[in-house]
């Protein structure tokens, strides 16, 4: 289990570890799968609800999405397009939450190097969401 601890920076002289000595990352893989599945179930359900409501009310799908800050208000009003907009947002956010879970997972394995890599990815994704919200 020596590989659990962050090693020295990569380089030609860095020590190597046999794969047989590697930790079992099964819990990390399982939590990643659970996060993806939850995002899919929630996003897919919202999409189905939105489609069913619009079919029931004989409403056409809109050709545009509403700004993110208006989606929750429209949802409270029971608008079918709000469910569809929220479904898209949930689907788009799911990989972000997955990366967060991966970062936490590596951190729990004391694998600081890969936890940091994951946090950097998270920062870049946060920047894209932030840019979208201020536009």
């Amino acid at each position, binding site marked *: 289990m020596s*590989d659990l601890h962050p*090693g020295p920076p*990569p*380089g*030609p002289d*860095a020590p*190597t*570890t*046999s*794969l047989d000595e590697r930790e079992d*990352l099964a819990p*990390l*893989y399982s939590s*990643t*799968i659970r996060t*993806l*599945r939850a*995002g*899919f179930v929630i*996003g*897919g359900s919202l*999409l189905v609800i939105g*489609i069913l409501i619009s079919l029931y009310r004989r409403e*056409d*799908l*809109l*050709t*545009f*999405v509403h*700004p*993110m800050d208006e989606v929750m208000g429209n949802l409270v009003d029971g608008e079918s*397009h709000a469910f*569809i907009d929220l479904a*898209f*947002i949930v*689907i*788009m*956010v*799911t*990989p*972000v939450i*997955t*990366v967060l879970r*991966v970062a936490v997972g*590596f951190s729990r394995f004391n694998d600081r*190097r*890969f936890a940091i*890599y*994951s946090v*950097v*990815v998270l920062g*870049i*994704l946060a*920047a*894209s*969401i932030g*840019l*979208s*919200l201020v*536009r």
Partner: protein
Amino acid sequence: VDITLAVELSLVAAGAAILGSMLGLGGGVFLVPIFTLFFGIDEKLAIGASAVAVVTNSIVGSSVHLRSRFTNLRLAMLLQIPTAGGALVGALLAVRAPERFLNAIFGAVLTYAALSMIFRKQAKHVDPGRIPDPWRLGARYLDPATGETVTYIPQRVPLGLGVSGLAGTISGMLGVGGGVIQVPAMNLLMRVPVKAAAGTSAFMVGITAVATSFVFYAEEHIDPTVVTPALIGIIAGSQIGSRLTRRVRTQRLIWIFVAILLYLGISLILKAASIDVPGQR
């Protein structure tokens, strides 16, 4: 809503997802050209739809790859840094780029990817016991097609990081996940077996497409009449594709990949040059 069009879009998306999931490409590489060439959908709406579809395909498809351990999470997180950064820059460029330019870039990327697969050399299997693994990226998985455990250690990591940055920029511009570049790069440059490259890429493409999705959402390039049928098809197709991956031999995947990419790539280049493509709307 035109129900016939919605069904057609769903079927195309399902086909794209089956191939995309099997190849770790996310499906967007097939969706955008088909939507623009054969359905006359605006390029930016197609890219927006593709980006959301790629995220969905990755969410659904990568669970199966993760369970099979084809996905290498350490490799994914390392390569994702330049990929996600590039995707953000690419998406911001794409919303201002002319359609013709995007078609030309897309066509060139598809053609290059197809040619690189045709002329590729078989990646040599390296015994991981004899080579160093300073980046700690080595992994193994059981290949159900052969019943053998495949062990590998990615090579030439700095080069892989550079290519990932390029892949991210292009994928951000085109609404694809970047797998079209990353799968060959991981396989040919980094010596990652194709199934591990496809599994790792299937996970990465969803993260990469997030940046594009949010930028296109904010720019109102997400059209629910296009995205909703695409998602329905993508969800069905990725379920089928990710299960087929475990049963189909790698060589067959590559030739399907090459034929479709070449056709779509050349069609987009012709469109950028204002030359009609048969069947184009």
